[in-house]
């Protein structure tokens, strides 16, 4: 299944035809489903079902948008997306794939129902192909829609993560928030989106793997990990602060550059 995930991701990021990109996304979706539902627990099955339904809808919308564009312009090139309707549909499809507000409702529930390692894949590897598609189509996307979705994602991701007691849900909301930051800058400087994504993937991987090794899935368990692995706990503290975006740590860099770029664009 991991090989299928890598195949799907590679297929999408290296394609310049919409059908190949869509095929890669579908391979990714289908490959991760058995990994989500591996434990056969009803909650895991529920997570897998929710993931499948949203991702299938998003893939269908993506294909629909590419078909409209192909019908209007006669070509299937990803970078040549010119029809406004298909741009709008693509934006909503990618938002659904990524988990941007208002298409974010599936993400915390799906992440809660999965084991931590699969959750890591869901947060990092599964986000890579849609971000790549956004990067490739960034000149044609509607900045207003993207900006409004990004601001809502950043705000809601932060507020809804406040009273959570399950760590996987907190990390899901953190992912939604970071995706907001990535999306807001894509129309102006797509390279910053990629930088943000790579750093986010690095920090999230560190967080997930630490939590996996300490088997902490809720806050009360996390409170007692300092007795079992004090150094790892300290490292987790720094990683979480970096995820939050505190200045001396790496996580601050993308936020700073994004705000700087937005200021240049008269938006901040």
């Amino acid at each position, binding site marked *: 299944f991991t090989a299928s995930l890598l195949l799907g991701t590679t297929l999408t990021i290296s394609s310049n035809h919409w059908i190949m990109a869509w095929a890669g996304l579908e391979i990714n979706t289908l490959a991760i489903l058995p990994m989500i539902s591996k434990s*056969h627990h*009803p909650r895991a099955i*529920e997570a897998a079902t929710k993931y499948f339904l949203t991702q299938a809808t998003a893939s269908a919308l993506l294909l629909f948008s590419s078909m409209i564009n192909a019908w209007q312009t006669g070509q299937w090139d990803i970078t040549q997306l010119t029809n406004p309707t298909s741009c709008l549909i693509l934006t909503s499809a990618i938002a659904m794939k990524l988990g941007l507000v208002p298409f974010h409702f599936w993400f915390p*529930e799906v992440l809660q129902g999965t084991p931590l390692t699969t959750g890591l894949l869901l947060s990092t590897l599964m986000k890579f192909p849609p971000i790549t598609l956004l990067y490739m189509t960034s000149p044609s996307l509607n900045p207003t829609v993207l900006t409004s979705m990004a601001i809502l994602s950043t705000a809601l991701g932060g507020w809804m993560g406040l009273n959570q*007691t*399950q760590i996987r849900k907190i990390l899901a909301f953190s992912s939604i928030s970071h995706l907001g930051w990535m999306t807001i800058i894509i129309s102006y400087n797509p390279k910053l989106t990629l930088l943000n994504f790579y750093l986010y993937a690095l920090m999230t991987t560190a967080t997930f793997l630490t939590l996996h090794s300490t088997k902490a899935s*809720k806050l009360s368990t996390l409170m007692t990990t300092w007795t079992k692995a004090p150094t790892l706990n300290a490292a987790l503290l720094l990683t979480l602060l970096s995820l939050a975006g505190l200045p001396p740590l790496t996580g601050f860099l993308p936020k700073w550059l994004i705000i700087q770029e937005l200021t240049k664009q008269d938006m901040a």
Partner: protein
Amino acid sequence: MAVAVVLLSGAPFHGGCCRHKVFLSLLGPLLSNSKLYSSYRRPGAEPKKKLSWQNADFSFKKSIDHLKTQLSLLTKETQDYLQGPGGHPLSQHVLEQTRVLWQFRSQEDLNKWVISSDVEIGGKSKVYIKLGRNNQAALLYGTLNTEVPRDGETKYSGYCSMRSRPAVGSFNRKKYYDWSNFNSLYLRVRGDGRPWMVNIYTDPYFSHQKDDLYSYFMFTRGGPYWEEIKIPFSKFFFSSRGRVQDNQHPVWLDKASFLTLGLTIGDKVDGPFQLEIDFIGLLNDRAHREEFAYETYDKN
């Protein structure tokens, strides 16, 4: 409709009255008020006189009062959200080891529970609930009758149960609780020696899992003394539609959404029963280290 048109057009030789009769006979089932499915009603079920949409109350004043109640609930929920998870500060959530979920001190506490028995399938058991002496406990009592209803399809009968109503927030939204800090159910009861079954229904998102239930037994001692029964959640086994499943897994308590607890008696013994319940709560028993009591169905 198309069939009616074809039949009518294909019968030009008949007189006008015959066409009228054919038309009415074809549309008869649609014109009458009967249901399209079978009208068989189980013996214990009440006859449905009103359709569900006819029960709607369109009073303006009541709707305004209802809206005010819901808005006040929403305000309270927002204030609780600002305080912390579950309306309590985070320190309380992290440090608490016991929590009382339901205690029976007033009629309002009793209204949070629903009693039912095999009368709904045509049986003859009786169950009642009332407040005990000095309003200190709930008394669930009645008579169990295992006589099978004569409807040709029921094989077993004789059960009585008490289930909690699921908690709803403002605008009838589901309330989510996090019980993952606890590992045991704690009940203070005084029974009559009969065994009870404790059922947990975690309302699943999809309807395919709506028959899933987690159950375990509660053996009461009888006698004049109250007993505190601790039932670890690791002991609850998984069943679906009343059949214990091969594929067992522990009950997940992190999203106790719409979770209902039920107490059922169905020990196939005719006669009266009685159970007094002081309170039902949760406990984090640090001495209980078991994760799950049954073998999980792990392949390879």
